[in-house]
């Protein structure tokens, strides 16, 4: 080694050493590992945010949401899950100075799975929507930093504290009404949580803005995300402060026990008297169900203007070998006065068609069979009672088959969908800054536009209908039948090839109701391709004022509904929605994908609904079987829900 080389080596060594010294010196130190962190005035080590939870698991811990008595909002942990109902955290701190010192600390938590990044890499500023992230700190937001007094003994001192994760952690006025903090209106999100411990010197504390110390406070009408402040923003420059993000996380999973009952809410019957004779221990209104049932019977919205004139036939399409010829004859050879004027029905006798099985922890729903004189097509379903924002909603379910062995449709739509928890202002979705949203869900194309609405919906709707895209083969060209009984071919018309080619398939329609907000930069109408993981999906919107964007994928009815069960998953993320289906959780495949470039993605709180519902097929142009020409069901049509997991 010559002198020059030695010199260069020395220079590099010095640079490295200086860098190390700087990084561990007296500005805000951030670390995500378990090693000690040091600044000029103090040193931290052994930060454990969940000291009393799953002690055997050091890093990734899990907690299942306790649905019992959770009407006021989810709490993590509950007293059932952890004595005192609190997580305890701990860390060790050493005073590095030669005098007694006061230090101050605060613990923050944030949901990491469903968040916007704190830093907007394009502007190098806080992300516009980082304030929407679910983060919190002390339950009492007016408790700011907590004080630690340390002597200069050159020893580490263990500091312990408690916290819990609750709804409305910022105690926002939006969710407080008549002095009641409705924490359930902003429930803790599922997914992984991180923990940020911030310890500061007395001097640094003075420089931390009030809206960071008190997460209830706003800065210029907006909340400020503390993670951004400490990890990327001005907080990073604090001289004698350490912000350390735990390496371990807490995964929150919601998996309600489906055997815990179905509650019946009077409100859905509009205050009118109704039959309660089917109430039982697992379905009804008793106080146990009111407190603990995770589900409620769902009553579909029925547009009374969409009257059907149904053929007067009662048959079991799935079991009676009902054929296309049966369909065609019934379509052509009933007179108007033989038809049954009706609208889609909903349950008039709650608990008659929904059952919660406490033993097998499952729910059974049944579209009831009907008879001559009663003639009804009754939709059936359940809805969760606790709202969530974002999550991977996965159901293990055996829904009814939709096609029979002749591939004739029974008229039902199997739907797994998320719907706004409603509520008005508190549950408004983020403002639409370009043209606004269509004001109502049900209004026409001339509905007024408003900056914000509470309506949101994300759907799986599975039925017999053709794809809209690519639109060269839409709509199918259906021949007109002619009611000449002397010639079979005149009335028994063949379906177009493009329909028969997928005769055994049903369509999985994936829809996001964005209420026609045109703010997304690639907002479009007609068919537009969306690429995701090597697949191209076609998103379709009828016109500028159409409230929903739909992607369709054809799948075989037998695979989805003839087996023992199948999984359906809506992965609702802040900037994406991914629809997946599969035979098991580890074999899920994407069938739909949308992102915030093409559609406004909901950020409010929603509920999950599972229904077997009858649709007016006028909603689904191009459908080969018209609802009016499909028989009334002769027998009950059951569906079974085995599991709901939200993570």
């Amino acid at each position, binding site marked *: 080694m010559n002198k020059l080389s030695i010199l260069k080596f020395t220079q590099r060594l010095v640079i490295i050493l200086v860098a190390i010294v700087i990084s561990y010196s007296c500005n805000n130190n951030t670390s995500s590992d378990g090693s000690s962190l040091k600044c000029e005035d103090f040193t931290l080590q052994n930060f454990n945010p969940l000291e009393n939870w799953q002690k055997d698991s050091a890093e990734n811990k899990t907690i299942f949401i306790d649905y019992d008595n959770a009407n006021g909002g989810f709490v993590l942990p509950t007293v059932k899950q952890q004595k005192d109902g609190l997580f305890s955290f701990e860390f060790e701190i050493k005073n590095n100075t030669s005098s007694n010192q006061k230090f101050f600390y605060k613990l923050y938590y944030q949901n990491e799975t469903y968040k916007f990044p704190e830093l907007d890499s394009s502007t190098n500023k806080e992300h516009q929507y980082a304030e929407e992230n679910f983060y919190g700190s002390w339950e009492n937001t007016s408790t700011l930093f907590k004080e630690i007094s340390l002597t200069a003994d050159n020893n580490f001192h263990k500091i312990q504290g408690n916290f819990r994760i609750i709804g409305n952690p910022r105690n926002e006025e939006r969710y407080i009404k008549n002095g009641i903090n409705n924490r359930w209106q902003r429930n803790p999100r599922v997914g992984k949580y991180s923990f940020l411990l911030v310890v500061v010197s007395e001097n640094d504390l003075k420089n931390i803005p009030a809206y960071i110390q008190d997460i209830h406070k706003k800065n210029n009408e907006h909340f400020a995300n503390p993670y951004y402040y400490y990890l990327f923003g001005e907080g990073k420059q604090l001289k004698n402060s350490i912000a350390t993000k735990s390496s371990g996380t807490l995964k929150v999973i919601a998996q309600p026990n489906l055997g815990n009952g179905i509650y019946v809410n009077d409100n859905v019957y509009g205050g009118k008297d109704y039959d309660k004779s089917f109430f039982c221990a697992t379905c009804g209104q008793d106080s146990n169900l009111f407190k603990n049932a995770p589900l409620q019977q769902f009553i579909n919205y029925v547009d009374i203007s969409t*009257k059907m*004139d149904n053929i*007067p*036939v*009662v048959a079991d399409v799935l079991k009676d*070998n009902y*054929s296309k*010829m*049966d369909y065609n*004859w019934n379509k*052509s*050879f*009933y*007179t*108007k*006065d*033989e*038809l*049954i*004027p*009706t*609208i889609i*029905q909903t349950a008039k006798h709650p608990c008659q068609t929904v059952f919660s099985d406490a033993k097998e922890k499952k729910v059974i729903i049944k579209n009831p069979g009907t008879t*001559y*004189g*009663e*003639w*009804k097509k009754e939709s059936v379903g359940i809805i969760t009672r606790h709202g969530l924002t974002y999550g991977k909603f996965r159901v293990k379910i055996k829904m009814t088959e939709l096609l029979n062995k002749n591939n004739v449709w029974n008229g039902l739509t199997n739907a797994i969908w998320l719907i706004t928890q409603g509520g008005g202002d508190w549950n408004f979705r983020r403002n639409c800054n370009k043209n606004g949203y269509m004001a109502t869900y049900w209004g026409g194309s001339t509905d007024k536009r408003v900056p914000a609405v509470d309506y949101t919906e994300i759907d799986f709707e599975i039925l017999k209908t053709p794809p809209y895209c*690519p*639109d*060269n*083969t*839409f*709509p*199918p*060209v*259906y*021949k*007109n*039948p*002619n*009611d*000449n*009984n*002397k*010639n*079979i*071919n*005149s009335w*028994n*018309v*063949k379906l*177009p090839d*493009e329909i028969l080619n997928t005769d055994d398939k049903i369509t999985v329609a994936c829809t996001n109701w964005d209420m026609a907000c045109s703010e997304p930069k690639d907002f479009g109408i007609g068919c537009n391709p969306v690429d995701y993981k090597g697949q191209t999906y076609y998103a379709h919107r009828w016109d500028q004022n159409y409230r929903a964007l739909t992607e369709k994928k054809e799948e075989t009815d037998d695979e989805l509904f003839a087996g023992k069960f199948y999984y359906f998953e809506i992965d609702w993320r802040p900037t994406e929605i991914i629809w997946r289906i599969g035979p098991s959780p580890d074999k899920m495949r994407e069938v739909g994908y949308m992102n915030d470039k093409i559609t406004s993605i909901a950020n409010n709180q929603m509920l999950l609904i599972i229904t077997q519902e009858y649709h007016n097929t006028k909603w689904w142009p191009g459908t080969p079987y018209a609802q009016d020409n499909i028989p009334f069901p002769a027998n009950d049509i059951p569906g079974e829900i085995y599991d709901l997991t939200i993570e």
Partner: protein
Amino acid sequence: MPQKKVRKLIIIFSILVICGFTSSYLFLRHQYAKKFNTGAELVRKDSAVLTTLLSEKIDFESMENVSAEKAFSGKRSFKIESSIEYGFGINKEMNAIPGYQGLKNIDIEVKCWAKKKVEAVYVLSVEDKDGKNIYWESKPMNGDKTENWRNLHFTFNLKPETINPAYIIKLYPWNKAKEEFYIDDIAVNYQGMGIPVPVGQSSTSNFLYDFESNEGLTGTESIKQTVAHSGKMACDLTGGREYGPLVVKKMTEVSTSLIKKITASVWVYPMTDKPNAVLTASITNSKGESVFWDGKSTENKPFPKNQWTKINASFSVPPEKISLEDKIQVNVWNKGRTDLLIDDMEVVYGEGADRKGDVSTIDANSIYEKKFSPQKNKPPFRTIYFSKQNFNYSSLSGFTPNDEFIVGDFIKDKSNLDEIICIHDGKAELFSFSSTTNEFTKVKGKVLSVDSLLKIKKNSEIHDFTFFKPTDITFSGDYYGDNKSEIVKLNMDWRFDLKLVQEERGGYVILGNIDFKGYSNDYNPKYYEFTKIISGRFISSNQSTLIVISCNCSDADFNGKHCNQMESNTSLPNSIGLYKIENK
């Protein structure tokens, strides 16, 4: 079979044979000879079908100078007073009937109320433009029921020489005895063979052009033998050729009313990338002015080179801009003038005809509130199922709906079961059911006299047209096996309409629509073009059952009464079955 029975049978047969076998045989031979006309070339029936060309209904509700004294429906009817000789008349120029060239008959239903039997007749008169009578026919309007609304049903058959676009059809009641009565709800169906259509669908609104022939097309110079989607021919739009063949239809050719939609499809074979071919629909009025144009392009759609890809289009037609005299054009415009081929163009005009009949009067709320109660003889009716019995039908496989059948307990034995005499091709044969072998077998013996047998059959028919239509076929029997008699009523005028009827206090009550169960695949008897029912106590002396013979017919002008050429249809093969009610 015991010898005694055989002897009895031989005696019966012999007497009947002496009475008139020879003459009957010759007569029926002539009538049914065509059945085995296997040498005749099959006519492609789909090219012309018997269909309703035009329907009209007059309920007098919006007319002035009509009677408000009584009405069958609504509040008004037409009163024919004793001073009036000719009642409300319908005049129709033949050229106002879409497809009048194929007009075969006029079917009329009219409701009539009279205090007593009337001698009036309903008249069809065909006249030329100068008022000269070309054809005249009348049907009696009498009926047994008085002081009640009666349904009268007439069918006037028209001969080819009475068809001329300039002729005028006149329909009216002739009150020749100057009596007083009311008429209401006149429904007229002009029925005939639909215009030829080049597609395997029997409809005047569905058309497929496969370019194998130029029929129905203009501007066909681009059609040639080339790469084709089907067959050998396609339309070649290469070398800058801009327009494909044109389909032109007058509105009245494809619909009896203004159409609201045109749907069309065509297969496109681009020879270059990014073709821009436009499937177009346009409408011009009688002055030749364009009143509508729309098109759908292949541009920006997945039409890969050297591959057949279909384009579908749906065009909404503004009804306020069009009239029945307008012409509709559909074609392909090669807007991009790139090289491409097109083939198999399909056009569907309109959205299909409305269902027949009046709007249902059922109160939907009565259903929701579970208070629905059916009204006597008004739809919707219950469905009563007859189930197919699992027998060996091989000995009956020669039965066809052309045959005549007589049912009775001809063999006096302990079983008390009915036997069937089948008159087939001028020959009568006897069949009976054996409960031992669970099958029908032909009874061996001499041939029966056909003439006398037919006389027996005619005597058993019902002639009460106050409830039944003249075209109804009726059978009576104990179908529930409860020692009560019911009537099975079949009407095939429009559809296979089979009802179970019960006599009640001198009238009749429809118990329900009869449908079938237990058949294989799609072989429901009601789907066949030509069906014959035989009723009797064939398998049980306590319960009547139905033997249903179901066939399809390939006659081009099949009228539902006799078929010259039975059709073997693989999806709906000709079949026979015995059906009975399983449960009450």
